[in-house]
């Protein structure tokens, strides 16, 4: 088995808690800022409103003074200990509960009404161990998150999917061992391993990181403000908005000109625009990919070698889809099941011509979404 895909090892020592940053930058994506520069904010105060129905709002992770507002960030210089008023969730139900959770920064799109909830207790990508660390060291918070999730989703059945040999449990959940080799660690494939069906009706998966965020909301009545991420061999408990430079420094890593600073995992993650960018909610990993670590992507045509076709867990033809995207053949992309793609990134990982296959597929999906919205 390729070492790259082998299941991650033990999460190691307890997560190192980093101090709250002196300047926290909350990343925005699909939010409209609702504060202005110089404004004083309390910890947990709304700083930007979500523009999409399934997305949670953004809040100040520390109390202080706003010193930057732009399209991508709201930055707060820490000052004082003022907190927003906690929300009591106990009495809330159904739609009201959803709306309140959304106003507390929870992405409610994954919280569909279903009857079977699968908790994906696997480290979702190679090299990441933070999910299993959460299961080991933050079980009470996860339990609070699970109870809240079940209240929102109405799930009568709950299954916790774990890597073979991981001893963890959540009250009210059956525990199941499932294969833990990437891409089997992704939600749709974990659901398949648990239920034996592909995308079955009435089943949804939540990751441990999503539960951790929900758990913080359930415990404090305030927006989620911490995440645990794997950097190198260790895990760090980080306040949301901590600049990546501080996390890298704590882990003894540094980034130079041209390097990629990758948040989440190497297959599905995203790159930081600068070292000042804050860590977002739910980020589970951070790594530095040195400039020139591997050949750059090229605009070479597909050589039809079939490697992506054979490795694709969605059983689509990524090379063909990337060609459809390249030439704007959106209908052909739909006819070739572009919607089945789960964006695992393996196609571009194996591509000998270094085509940006996943990027092309995402581009076509985005264009299809825009077409659907414009109708």
């Amino acid at each position, binding site marked *: 088995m390729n070492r790259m895909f082998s299941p991650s090892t033990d999460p190691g020592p307890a997560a190192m808690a980093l101090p709250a940053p002196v300047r926290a930058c909350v990343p925005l994506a699909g939010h409209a800022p609702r504060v202005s520069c110089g404004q004083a904010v309390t910890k947990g105060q709304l700083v930007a409103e979500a523009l999409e129905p399934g997305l949670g709002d953004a809040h100040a992770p520390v109390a202080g003074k706003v010193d930057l507002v732009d399209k991508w960030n709201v930055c707060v210089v820490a000052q004082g200990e003022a907190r927003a008023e906690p929300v009591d969730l106990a009495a809330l139900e159904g739609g009201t509960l959803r709306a309140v959770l959304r106003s507390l920064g929870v992405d409610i799109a994954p919280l569909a009404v279903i009857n079977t909830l699968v908790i994906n207790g696997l480290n979702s990508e190679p090299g990441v161990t933070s999910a299993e660390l959460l299961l080991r060291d933050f079980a009470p918070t996860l339990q609070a998150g699970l109870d809240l999730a079940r209240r929102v989703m109405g799930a009568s059945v709950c299954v916790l999917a774990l890597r073979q040999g991981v001893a963890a449990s959540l009250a009210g959940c059956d525990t199941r061992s499932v294969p833990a080799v990437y891409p089997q660690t992704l939600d749709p494939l974990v659901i398949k391993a648990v239920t034996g069906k592909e995308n079955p009706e009435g089943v949804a998966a939540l990751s441990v990181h999503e539960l951790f965020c929900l758990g913080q909301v359930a415990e404090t009545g305030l927006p989620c403000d911490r995440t645990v991420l794997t950097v190198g061999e260790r895990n760090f408990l980080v306040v949301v908005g901590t600049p990546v430079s501080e996390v890298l420094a704590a882990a003894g890593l540094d980034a130079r*000109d*041209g*390097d990629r600073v990758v948040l989440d995992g190497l297959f599905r993650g995203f*790159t930081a625009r600068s070292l000042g960018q804050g860590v977002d909610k739910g980020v589970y990993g951070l790594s530095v990919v040195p400039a020139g670590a591997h050949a750059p992507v090229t605009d070479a045509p597909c050589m039809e070698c*079939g490697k992506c076709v*054979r490795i694709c867990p969605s059983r689509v033809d990524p090379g063909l889809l990337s060609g459809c995207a390249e030439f704007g053949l959106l209908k052909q992309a739909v006819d070739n099941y572009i919607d089945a793609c789960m964006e695992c990134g393996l196609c571009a990982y*194996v591509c*000998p011509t270094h085509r940006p296959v996943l990027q092309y597929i995402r581009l076509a999906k985005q264009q299809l979404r825009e077409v659907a919205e414009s109708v």
Partner: protein
Amino acid sequence: MQSLTPDKTARVLGAGALRPLTAAPVLTVSAPPFAHAGSSVRSLMLTSIAALAPAAIMAAVAYGLPAVRVMALCGATAIITETLCERLMGRQSSADDYHCLYVGLVLAFLLPAAAPWWLAVMGAASSIVLGKMIFGGLGGSPLSPALVGWAVCRLSWPEAMDAEFSMLASELISPLHHLKFFGPEAVDGITSVQLLLGRQLGGLGASQLWAVSAGGLLLLALGRVRWEIPLAFLTGLVATTGIYWLSDPASHASPLFHLLAGSAIFVAFFAATDEPSSPSRVLPMLLFGLLAGALTAVIRIYGIYPDGAPFAVLLANLFTPMLARIRPKPFGAR
């Protein structure tokens, strides 16, 4: 990479960007994945060329300088042709990915060692022009490129392509010719060991059987080619010739003879596995291989050409788009 000054950075990132820390590095931003398996077209082709090396050395040992000359001519012509085509197409040259060299060498392996210089040049040039570049270059070939060049030569200059005819000085014989023109008794005396040791006339490299097989197994071991097409090809050939042989052993050669004579094993590993012209999913690959193998047997038994393997693969290539339609339902499809 050019390093950017902070003020330049602010211009690049736009106004209101995060204020860079003092001398903060300028990061690269890109889409995932941020890991790569490490293979490149060049590494794949170099692996394939390395797998050709044992048979190339054996060909040089068996036929001497003429064989080296044909291989050099084919390789060089392929590289030059591709470079010229790309110049004409207004493209950057990609000859340095070694694919054209590989195509040229595969063609050389199918030519007789006594091939005249113009035959090697015409064959290699038509392999690249008609087999690859007119379809847009690497990845576009509907037919295995080296076999296109081979077919052009085989149909245009049959005497020059005929190893038996063009190498009268050699004491070796071409077993498939003798089978075709003198019947199975004529090849009774040829043992499998002789064939394996390359004691047969044919393509200068394709007939170095043990070395070709070693190269093929190397390709499998390194994961450069998958087992489906070569195995299905040879299975199709053995099964089809086996049926004929069992039904009438007096007028047909044994399946083992068909397996070891001519270019079947070479074509199975090095030409049928050309990726653009063959399917990429497991079942279609197996069907493609079986079809090509069975067609090889049929052409050898009924056709006018002693060795049907290259033609059989070209015919099977035509089925590739149809075979590619055999595909599983995508994940989660109802």
